[in-house]
């Protein structure tokens, strides 16, 4: 096979890859903007109402409508929106009056913090569980993992959330109540990244840090449980697949310990598709934790978008959707890169 001109080819390869990624990102975002925008305009909710309220006199109403540009043709509105969006200006949120970007910068870190921890918990527990279930297929532990998974799929998250609050907070008092941090600590540090754990740790406010940790632990475990349900199940099926491969037998033939065969050979291979699964579950937590956020009074992006949507705050909805879309595409990219890293065949 021709392998000449390696350096030049490699450069071109990466350039094409980058161009491809930019293209994917751009088209996906454009699609997102377009769909959301037009949905926003056909939704039978009057966005002006959200701003001026029910009692406003007609003159005020008309003025605001014009201010919002709602009297322009749809295409023109879209064009204006797009032009502004490119410069990072998504307009102001009606509900919070802040620029949408500021709001997202405030709410996204909360969700990010929660989802990241949740995914971490789900991954760290889910993978070993899945591996165990696959290795001991049909055994009690396999049934257990299956049950955990099933329960994770079928229990309404708000139910579990409230029940766990009732148990761990109200009855046992192991964790503090809903919210990100206790009011006593909330002014001890200055929000920089808005990721409380990071901010408090960086500013050396350890009391506040531990308080934040104790606040996040329950909702994170809850989200972790749901991602665990998915991850353990997928791990199990990938592991079953890998364990049936010839190379596993070859590894046994070499006289390797069963531990090494499972964790180093089989799991190392199962990790390749798992990366995608974890990324997917992470993305789901980032976008889908609305209900958890509601129960735990967690001022996150999910709540923000839902609330905005219900109030026809379309700027906020669009902005939020774009952020989630971007995160999604980025996660795709990262999992793609990891995939390449983990699987030499795709390099």
């Amino acid at each position: 096979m021709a392998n000449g001109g390696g350096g030049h080819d490699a450069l071109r390869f990466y350039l094409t890859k980058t161009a491809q990624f930019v293209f994917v990102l751009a088209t996906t975002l454009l699609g997102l903007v377009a769909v959301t925008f037009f949905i926003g305009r056909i939704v039978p909710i009057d966005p002006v109402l959200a701003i001026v309220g029910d009692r406003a006199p007609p003159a005020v109403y008309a003025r605001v409508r014009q201010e919002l540009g709602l009297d322009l043709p749809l295409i023109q509105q879209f064009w204006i929106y797009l032009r502004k969006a490119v410069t990072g200006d998504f307009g102001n949120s009606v509900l919070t009056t802040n620029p949408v970007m500021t709001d997202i910068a405030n709410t996204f870190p909360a969700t990010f913090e929660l989802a990241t921890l949740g995914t971490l918990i789900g991954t760290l527990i889910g993978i070993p569980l899945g591996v165990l279930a696959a290795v001991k297929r049909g055994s009690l532990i396999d049934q257990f993992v299956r049950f955990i998974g099933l329960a994770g799929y079928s229990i309404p998250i708000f139910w579990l959330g409230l029940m766990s609050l009732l148990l761990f907070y109200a009855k046992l008092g192991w964790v503090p109540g809903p919210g990100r941090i206790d009011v006593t600590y909330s002014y001890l540090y200055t929000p920089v990244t808005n990721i409380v754990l990071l901010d408090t740790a960086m500013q050396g406010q350890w009391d506040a840090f531990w308080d934040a940790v104790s606040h996040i632990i329950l909702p994170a475990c809850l989200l972790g449980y749901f991602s665990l349900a998915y991850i353990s199940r997928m791990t199990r099926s990938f592991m079953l697949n890998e364990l049936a491969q010839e190379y596993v037998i070859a590894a046994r033939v070499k006289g390797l310990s069963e531990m090494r065969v499972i964790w180093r050979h089989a799991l190392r291979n199962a990790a390749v598709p798992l990366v995608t699964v974890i990324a997917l579950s992470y993305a789901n937590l980032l976008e889908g934790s609305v209900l958890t956020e509601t129960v735990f009074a967690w001022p996150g992006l999910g709540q923000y978008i839902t609330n905005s949507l219900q109030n026809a705050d379309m700027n906020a909805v669009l902005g939020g959707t774009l952020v989630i879309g971007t995160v999604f595409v980025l996660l795709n990219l990262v999992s793609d890169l990891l995939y390449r890293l983990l699987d030499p065949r795709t390099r």
Partner: protein
Amino acid sequence: MAGAPPLPQPSGLRAWLLSAEPNSRWQARLGRGYLGWRSFTKNPLAVLGLGIVVLLLFVALFADFIAPYSPVIGGDLRTQRLLPPSETFWLGTDDQARDIFSRIIYGSRITLFVIVLVSIIATPIGLLVGTVSGYLGGWVDTVLMRITDIFLAFPRLVLALAFVAALGPGIENAVIAIAITSWPPYARIARAETLMIRNSDFIAAVKLQGASTPRIIFGHVVPLCISSLIVRVTLDMAGIILTAAGLGFLGLGAQPPSPEWGAMVATGRNYLIDQWWVAAMPGLAIFVVSLGFNLLGDGLRDVLDPKAAK
């Protein structure tokens, strides 16, 4: 609870079914179904799953006869409201003094409706998009996968909420919204599967017989993707019921007083701590039905999915 008990088979019929040399396509098909059924029934959990699903069907069908009270008309607000489970009200009553048991019984119809509708909308869309894009490749693939990605990258709830908002609330629209948000993963699966088989020799063989592209896709590619998709869809059932519940939770699902389980749980959340049965009972129903579908899906995977059967 077991599913339909296997009828005592007259040995003649059985022999006919298992005949190694069926005489007609029909006999062959029945025989094959019988074999599948036999291997399926060897898996007790799968049978349990099937039992639950059959029970759901049965309950939905005969709700009128099973339910002791009306699902929508409540009793006396002053005396019959939020009663705990008792002999008169097996599962207690809700905030409108309605019998929860009767509501759950009638709610099975809605659940069934949601499940069936979502699967017959989302599965074909996913299947079509996935197989076409996987088989044709090139720019068709690029375009279709971009669209899939866009729908995938959409926050599900936003999309569902938006659709419900655009179409107006109500269970039908909730179903459409859920369907619209759930096809992309199916498309992905179907595409991955198609990519695996599109270069296989048996596809080359039909091509060599001059088969047209639609013929290949629908006659040869689709049947191979469909089984893993069916498995996936049954496994998704729980998620679908819960998404419907989630929409109900946000007030966009079924309209009151219809006894939709998710909406019932959502209402019950107001009484979660003291009148636990209001949310727990329909929640349990959701759990059991999801469990049923999951077990069934697992069992079907063994019967249908050639890869898992290996």
